[in-house]
């Protein structure tokens, strides 16, 4: 070990420090830049219906048994703007930037930052 340390030059140590600092900073920076993944996926009846980029603001309306559900994407966040189901829990959940909004009566699942393959494989049962 001693010989190894004696064998390294100042340039070696400097290079090592630069590489370690740059890569650790890069890891943190890239985590910071995209903490939740790039896409918003809207699934209806267990099938992914829309995959939308989160950086583009838009309104999507999705037909369901209780009428159209309006999903709004703005500033990288997503919410259910308008729903016509009995409880309207999805509407009350408000804006999310990670995780999921589930609207059981309309069979809609909105997930942020996942691939289509990561989604739950459908709904076991619908209650209420």
């Amino acid at each position, binding site marked *: 070990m001693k010989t190894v340390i004696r064998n390294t030059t100042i*340039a070696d140590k400097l290079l090592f420090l630069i590489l370690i600092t*740059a890569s650790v900073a890069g890891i943190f920076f*890239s985590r910071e830049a995209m903490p939740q993944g790039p896409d918003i996926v809207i699934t209806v009846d267990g099938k992914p219906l829309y995959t939308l980029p989160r950086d583009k603001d838009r309104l999507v309306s999705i037909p369901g048994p209780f009428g159209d559900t309006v999903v709004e994407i703005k500033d990288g966040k997503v919410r259910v703007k308008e729903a016509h189901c009995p409880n309207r829990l999805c509407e009350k959940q408000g804006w999310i930037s990670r995780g999921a909004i589930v609207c059981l009566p309309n069979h809609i699942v909105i997930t942020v930052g996942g691939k289509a393959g990561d989604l739950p494989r459908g709904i076991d049962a619908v209650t209420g």
Partner: protein
Amino acid sequence: MQLQDKYRIAVLSAYALSLHAFESLLPTPIPWLRLGLANIITLVALVLYGFRTAMTVTLIRVILGSIFMGTFLGPSFMLSFSGGVASTAAMGLAYLTFGNIFGPVGLSLIGAFFHNVAQLTLAYFLFIQRVEAVLFITPVIILIGTLTGVANGAVSGLLIKKILQKNGENIQNDKAD
């Protein structure tokens, strides 16, 4: 090329190939993570016998290694080839221009860095083609490469020292040509 050079290249290539094969047997936590043990031989060849020998050994190792593993001309061969050539070229350039400013550890770090950069660039153009995925993974790979690069450089340094102690007078570095 003299007979002695051919003999030397053959022995070094054999070492590099066996290390290359050995490390592909080692289980790693992430499938694409490699220790780059063969780089030890490249570095020793570069410092003791010069750039030409190092590049020849690298080319023989990459091509024969992929033929033995059955990946010749496949995607993993292309990645391995580009990484090997880029890292050897970078180390050779650094050694020829900066001389003894960088020790074996520094050269190994340079090699590891350019190995990863070349592979990531090629992987981006050939396979992934998603900028954010490549940018996301790059610092992680550079960090791992730096750590393994230090270890390989340390081993190379010890090896070079031992060989020079044992038969220093028999070694002629063809650095001049």
